[in-house]
């Protein structure tokens, strides 16, 4: 492909500004919409992908069959951690809890700080590495706290917050390590970590966390290097669970009601698929919107590609019509000796030019629309414009340029120079005309389908937003109380006063 081909292509675009604007803008809008949707799809598909060797990590989950509904929970009795560490095939095991930490006080300012209480080996299991400080030491020191870089900036105005202190309740804790921020697409989000020996844990609780003897639960993670060992590990944990005192102590009438079913079923599921775990998403403690639906995400990927296809077909049709109007030029080039390859390359160059201009414009449109889109899908997509993704978008633009150039190039090859140059321009070949009609029908059908889908979603959303909740919400005041605060004297007094 020669530079001249691009130069001539650019001149053609400049000579027909109306056509060029429609072709480029149509493709750019399709590209932008496709990019945003694929960005969301990629975001959803890469949940927890940042964890080193994530494919080896399994989440232990269970369901309590005594409950008639028996939803799955991604939490398990902590006594299984010790069993897991002794089970062949388990390379590592740890657990953590999402903690409703009381408000953190820095100086005179109060902050919320979602934290994790983590058991030994948590950092190793998830491959966490501190930016500053000693992470392992921080998780065993009673007065130590680990925070993320963005939390450090939020609390102290700088990521260099090592040895700074915060007050949680009546305890003073010192920042002993700074971690990089976990990505937004993780099922294990946190702003701070502290270990079992922390002063935030009662002495009795510390022992229970490590042994689980009295039935404490947590989110249990295992590293199993050989995927073939997963069923055996699950079976070993199930046996340990069946033998646990809490399970053995279930009343006989309940056992009779369960029949052949176990009191508690246990299963392992890959952390890599935790975001799409629909079983867990159905349990009552799973926050709404916390998990994704694989079919919905796959559907959005298809919609994204369909939108891009509409843009591409639109451009192919416009470009083909342009070729039909340029038959004399094509004929002349053939007469002057342009080979099949040179004709194809010329139209490919023009198509690539349009496609790359549209890609760049599409990237700009997507960048401008990103905040609104991120709010719409309720996900943090600010990393969508990473260098790798922009590079990938340009690559898609290149491929699109080649694909959309095929039909115009093929039409150009069909031009018969003798007739074209004698002013008896032959019309489109029968096959070419059929192909173009088919593409037009496909384009319109897809556009109508997508428009109907969008309208359906809009109507449903409007209905949901305007539906009556069955009570008058206007005079209600919602007060969000931290977990421990709910039991305090002050809150109880406040509730009593409310009457």
């Amino acid at each position, binding site marked *: 492909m020669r530079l001249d081909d691009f130069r001539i292509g650019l001149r*053609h675009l400049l000579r027909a500004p109306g056509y060029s604007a429609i072709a480029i803008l149509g493709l750019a809008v399709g590209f932008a919409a496709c990019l945003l949707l694929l960005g969301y799809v990629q975001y959803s598909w890469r949940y927890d992908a940042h964890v080193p060797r994530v494919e080896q990590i399994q989440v232990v989950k269970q369901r309590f069959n005594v409950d008639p509904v028996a939803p799955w929970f991604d939490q398990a009795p902590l006594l299984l951690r010790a069993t897991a560490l002794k089970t062949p095939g388990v390379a590592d095991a740890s657990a953590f809890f999402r903690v409703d930490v009381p408000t953190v006080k820095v100086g005179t300012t109060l902050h919320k700080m979602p934290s994790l209480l983590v058991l030994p080996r948590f950092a190793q299991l998830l491959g966490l590495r501190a930016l500053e400080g000693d992470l392992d030491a921080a998780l065993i020191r009673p007065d130590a706290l680990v925070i993320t870089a963005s939390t450090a900036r939020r609390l102290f105005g700088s990521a260099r917050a090592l040895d700074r202190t915060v007050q949680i309740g009546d305890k003073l804790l010192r920042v002993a390590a700074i971690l990089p921020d976990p990505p937004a697409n993780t099922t294990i989000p946190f702003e701070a970590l502290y270990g079992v020996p922390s002063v935030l844990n009662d002495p009795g609780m510390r022992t229970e966390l490590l042994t689980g003897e009295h039935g404490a639960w947590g989110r249990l993670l295992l590293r199993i290097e050989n995927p073939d060992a997963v069923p055996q590990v699950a079976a070993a944990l199930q046996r340990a669970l069946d033998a646990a005192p809490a399970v053995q102590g279930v009343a006989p009438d309940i056992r009779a009601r369960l029949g052949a079913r176990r009191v508690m079923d246990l299963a392992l599921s890959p952390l890599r698929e935790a975001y799409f775990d629909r079983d867990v998403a159905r349990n009552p403690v799973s926050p709404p919107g916390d998990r994704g639906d694989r079919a919905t995400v796959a559907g959005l990927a298809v919609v994204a590609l369909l939108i891009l296809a509409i843009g591409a077909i639109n451009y192919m049709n416009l470009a083909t019509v342009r070729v039909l109007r340029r038959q004399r030029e094509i004929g*002349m080039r053939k007469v002057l000796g342009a080979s099949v390859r040179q004709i194809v390359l010329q139209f490919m160059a023009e198509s690539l030019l349009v496609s790359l201009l549209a890609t760049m414009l599409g990237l700009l449109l997507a960048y401008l629309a990103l905040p609104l889109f991120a709010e719409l899908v309720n996900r943090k997509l600010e990393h969508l414009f990473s260098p790798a993704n922009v590079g990938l978008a340009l690559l898609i633009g290149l491929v699109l340029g080649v694909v959309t150039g095929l039909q115009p190039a093929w039409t150009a090859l069909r031009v018969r120079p003798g007739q074209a140059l004698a002013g008896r321009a032959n019309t489109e070949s029968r096959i070419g005309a059929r192909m173009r009609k088919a593409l037009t029908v496909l384009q319109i059908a897809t556009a109508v389908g997508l428009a109907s889908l969008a309208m359906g979603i809009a109507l449903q959303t409007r209905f949901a937003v305007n539906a009556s909740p069955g009570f008058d919400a206007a005079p209600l005041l919602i007060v969000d109380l931290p977990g421990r605060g709910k039991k305090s004297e002050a809150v109880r007094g406040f509730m009593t006063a409310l009457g």
Partner: protein
Amino acid sequence: MLKLVSLSKSFTGGEVKTTALDRISLDIAAGEYVAITGPSGCGKSTLLSVLGLFDTGDSGQYWFDGQDIAGWSEMALHTLRRGRIGFIFQDFNLLEELNVAENVELALAYTDVSRQERRERAAAMLDKLGVGHRARHRPSQLSGGQQQRVAIARALVARPALLLADEPTGNLDTAHGNEVMRLLRQINDEGTTVVIVTHSADHAAQAGRMVRLLDGRIEADATTLAQVAP
């Protein structure tokens, strides 16, 4: 140089079959200046397309420079044509996206000639045809006569052995038409074989040989006065 042996060509439009060339036999030697004449629809342009290797006959033979090209692929015909045949058209067919010099250079763009040499040869050819001062203009900024000179420059810049001209004066006034005919005479005198399709009896008479077509057949093939003139 060119030899047609009982060559026929027909077109089918819907259910109607039209015979454009009917068992044409024609021999054109290198260096000849041949005018093809005849009424509209007699097959002149089709004959020129076949001679120029744009089209092939349905039956019969076409020998080009001693090679029977029957059954050759489009790619092979393209290779044979490149640089050996120059074309001039009634509508000039200059590309508006290119300036005058670029239009002429285009004839060398698909050859191995370097960019520098392309520029030099195009400039020299434009100068020779008296339109060198218009090299940076767009074709639409030129008069019809000037455009046809540019088209001739484009046809000749690759130094073809054969020049085919389809009604080259059809869109020109008398003065410009005569000027173009004078140029074609000069080109032929320099050794290039010229085949011209024309309606004009005067212009045809300037060729050394006149072939008259009627209904796809050769009605007459005669040496003109121009050939025998001293």
